């Protein structure tokens, strides 16, 4: 017969298993709740027009967010061009070259930078790029997002480079490769899938940033007139439309949220795909 002690242990086991299970289920369901809610509220506004047309003037229904979709992609492009190379090279430095003290400083600073509130980075980009020329620009938004991309890229690059076995480096150097040649021809290719994944995730993460764009890229109800001019973006558009007093705009904000989430999910899936493929080699 089971003693009370054993019954107590078994029931405690059962209770804890249930609790952790419920928590795990809650984590998963949050994403699906958000997705479902977005589809429920924004699905109806999602038409071809949404992707091809400019926003309609206030008071008219319909129209789309083509400019914001293109604008977001342009901002991400700028962020990629400015942030990814710096992040990549700094990651290579940390993983392959760095000495103890300086590496520690770089790593610590990177973590701090990662923790800086995005709006503060927005202010920084504002004073750096917007104030001198006295108008908002896509460039300023790109700088803000680019800065945010750097720490994530640095850490993921370093992590994936460290995962490359040291004996591969030895093999290359034993064949007469210099340190840099070893990194460029063996270590980076071996880690490329992971590094690329980290970069995609970094971009996906900043794709949804609103705060740093509010006073850098600002927003635009029309096509942007160039890199030096204000530009629309999906997150800012969502913000603007969600707080406006029109039902049609609310629906479009939901739709924009759906598109943004779909973009992020797609790039996540793409990242996982790349990683899975690169591991199969």
């Amino acid at each position, binding site marked *: 017969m089971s003693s009370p002690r054993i019954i107590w242990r078994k029931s405690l086991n059962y209770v804890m298993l249930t609790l952790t299970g419920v928590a795990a289920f809650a984590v998963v369901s949050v994403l699906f709740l958000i997705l479902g809610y977005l589809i429920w509220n924004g699905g109806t506004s999602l038409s071809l027009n949404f992707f091809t047309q400019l926003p309609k003037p206030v008071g008219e229904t319909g129209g789309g967010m083509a400019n914001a979709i293109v604008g977001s992609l342009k901002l991400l492009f700028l962020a990629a061009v400015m942030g990814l190379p710096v992040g990549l090279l700094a990651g290579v430095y940390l993983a392959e070259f760095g000495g103890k003290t300086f590496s520690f400083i770089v790593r610590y600073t990177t973590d701090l930078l990662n923790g800086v509130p995005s709006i503060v980075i927005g202010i920084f980009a504002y004073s750096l790029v917007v104030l001198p020329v006295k108008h908002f620009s896509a460039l300023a938004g790109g700088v803000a997002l680019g800065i945010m991309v750097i720490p994530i890229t640095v850490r993921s690059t370093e992590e994936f480079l460290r995962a490359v*076995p040291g*004996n*591969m*480096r*030895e*093999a*290359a*150097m*034993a*064949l*007469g*490769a*210099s340190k840099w*040649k070893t990194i460029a*021809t*063996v270590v980076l*290719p*071996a880690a490329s899938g992971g590094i690329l994944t980290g970069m995609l995730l970094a971009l996906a993460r900043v794709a949804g940033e609103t705060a740093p764009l509010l006073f850098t890229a600002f927003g635009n109800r029309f096509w942007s007139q160039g890199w030096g001019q204000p530009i629309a973006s999906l997150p800012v558009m969502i913000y603007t439309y969600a707080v406006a007093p029109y039902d049609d705009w609310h629906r479009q904000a939901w739709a924009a949220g759906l598109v943004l989430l779909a973009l992020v999910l797609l790039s996540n899936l793409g990242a996982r795909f790349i990683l899975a493929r690169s591991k199969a*080699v």
Partner: protein
Amino acid sequence: MEKTTSPTIEHKQRLTISNLNFYYGPKQAVFKLNLKIPTNRVTALIGPSGCGKSTFLRTLNRMNETIRNTRVEGEVLLDGQDIHSLDVVGLRRRVGMVFQRPNPFPKSIYDNVAYGLRINGYKGRLDDLVEHSLRRAALWDEVKDYLKKSAFALSGGQQQRLCIARALAVDPEVLLLDEPCSALDPVTTAKIEELMFQLKDSCTMAIVTHNMQQAARASDFTAFMLDGHLIEHSETSKLFTTPTDPRTEAYITGRFG
């Protein structure tokens, strides 16, 4: 300290090591080591774990320089030239290395073998040399139809022979083997030993091994190391049958190590 029976008088010496000291930071790992490695012969380095034989082997192609805070003293002559005065890239092309664990690159079989040629700026026909190297490593027949496949698809023994082919591709005069069979099964080990026997025509080899049967089977000369010192060096048959130093005898009869 050491009792070298100068077994190598009749042979040309590929490598002549004199008064070699090696330090990891303040800790000395190799002490005043003198050794001659004869041309186109296999020299085995045996000794208990941590006796410095791998460290010593890695001084011969200056691989230890990739480890921070290490220092080497003494002279290593490769065909009469001190290796420390040579360009390290050129040295490593002439003194190839095979490691304990097979470490192919995550590239195709072909690209693995061609790697050394490419980084050394070889401009000739890669295909021929890749085939030639794979044949020398006795791997060609097994992989000739899969050259574009990933090297990771090969078995452990095939990977190790691929690493040998990769080292052979740049046509080194010396091949250093750092316990090349310790991760392999006996059948594959036999293949590698057979391969070493064939390579003797064209290549000088130094092999670190924990396996005394392997040293006895595969080498012409054997050097026994203990605590960073070379204890005894002579013809393999002699060292294993009539060792002159009691410590050598104790080790090869299994009384320690």
